[in-house]
């Protein structure tokens, strides 16, 4: 993966977040405070600006994205995405490209950071209901020699389903947790936006193939 492709993931993500801004807000209105779309869209708009400005290697580019999200999004999402991407950045090489294995390792570092800081587990109705199983699939796939493109392709459908499945869960972390039983019946906005990231990854990788 090179830095152009890496940046394309984030441009795609920014576009998908913007397109889904109102939908994410409406998901958040049901079990939170109606601003997940607004906050993520504000952060991503800033993040891709820093992507345009960056002309160094992968570590520098991803660090700029991380700092943009950390200082622009706010809320739990900003803290988790921002500090998680700082770990992702530290895991990537300073060069302008990396192997698929190195990329997957950086996603692993991101997920570990989100897990450590947010202290949520699988089934708590959070973004980790998408990222934990996706991380496991990526790690296993890369270890088995599968291509990142094939994995990303598969994960588009898988992560969408995992996000949709949060509808049946009771929230145990985050602001929705205060609702208890009443959080059931609504898709978690953080899980849904996380599934969009895998769609963005797949689009970026397919763009390379095209």
């Amino acid at each position, binding site marked *: 993966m090179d830095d152009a492709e890496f940046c394309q993931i984030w441009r795609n993500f920014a576009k998908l977040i913007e397109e889904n801004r109102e939908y994410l807000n409406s998901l958040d209105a049901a079990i939170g405070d109606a601003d997940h779309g607004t906050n993520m869209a504000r952060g991503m708009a800033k993040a891709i600006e820093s992507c345009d400005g960056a002309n160094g290697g992968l570590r520098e580019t991803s660090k700029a994205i991380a700092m943009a999200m950390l200082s622009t999004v*706010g809320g739990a999402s900003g803290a988790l995405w921002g500090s998680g991407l700082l770990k992702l950045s530290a895991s990537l090489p300073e060069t302008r490209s990396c192997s698929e294995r190195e990329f997957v390792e950086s996603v692993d570092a991101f997920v570990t950071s989100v897990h450590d800081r947010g202290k949520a587990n699988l089934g708590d109705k959070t973004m980790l209901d998408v990222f934990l199983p996706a991380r496991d699939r990526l790690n296993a796939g890369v270890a088995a020699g599968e291509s990142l493109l094939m994995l990303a392709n598969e994960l588009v459908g898988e992560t969408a389903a995992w996000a949709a499945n949060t509808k049946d869960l009771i929230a145990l972390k985050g602001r929705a947790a205060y609702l208890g039983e009443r959080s059931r019946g609504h898709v978690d906005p953080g899980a849904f936006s996380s599934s969009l990231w895998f769609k963005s990854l797949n689009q970026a990788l397919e763009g390379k193939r095209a």
Partner: protein
Amino acid sequence: MKKLINSVDRVVEEALDGLVVAFPHYLSRIPNSHVLARAVPKASGKVGIVSGGGSGHEPAHGGYVGFGMLDAAVAGEVFTSPTPDQVLTGIKAADHGAGVLLVVKNYTGDVMNFDIAREMAEAEGIATAAVTVNDDVAVEDSLYTSGRRGIAGTVFVHKIAGALAEQGASLDQVVAAANGVIANLASMGFAFESCTVPAAGKATFELASDEMEMGIGIHGEPGTHRMKVEGASELTSYLLGKIVADLEITPDDRVVAMVNGMGATPLLELAVMANEVAHQATGAGFILEQVFLGEFMTSLEMAGASLTLLRVDETRLELLRSACDTPALRQGVRIG
């Protein structure tokens, strides 16, 4: 949506400047930040106090910056916790060499962003401590969830920690006093009508004309249940019952109450509630030392109110009643 704004994107920006325009002797805005600090910083060698959170809770938190309360307040976007770099700016503004206490309301986002900011401050050699306010008894506390929310009672933490810091107490002493307040603090609120987050453009929830939301959070997040609207006596009795049970208040306990408007409830009605609190306290046999009445921690234009009780002893009561001079709370200050 009817809002007295220019654009959704600039609400917080312009409101922060507006507060400085209205209170230039109290507030100064740290350039390129969402931090309001004291116009005249306190003497060096005293503990600094920083609070903050999403905007939309005015007069919290900028309204409590001043003598006897906060040194800096950090504002996030509406109902969104501030980012770590902003909190760090607040910590630096409040640092006078004796350490900085962060007063954090227990929301996932606030806790994480203030935590990251503390890590950054420690890396720069500034000693910090944090206390987490979780006074809302509406939501269950549990090992498996994020715990109770922090709501209007937070203002009592600002007041008592701020008073002690002003006297020159150490960071450890201020932390202990703040935690003492938190351990004896309980609140609960309700809403008659939702608020409208500017960026969302429509009401966060809908209530029928005879319906209300009990146990509402301060961000318009739903509460514990919906019910038919009841009168001031019944509502006060319900809230008081939950709070008294939580604090295990017994006859002869001394308490201070806060009747807090959420943004669109007239002071006339809040005063009716204050009267109910006094009557029902007498009936229950505990000693109501004082009632704070007004809007202390709002939720934009939400209609509704919250009730807070703080159990006090002589020390806590003295700190609560000591002089402070801030845009939103002024007491015991001699002019001239």
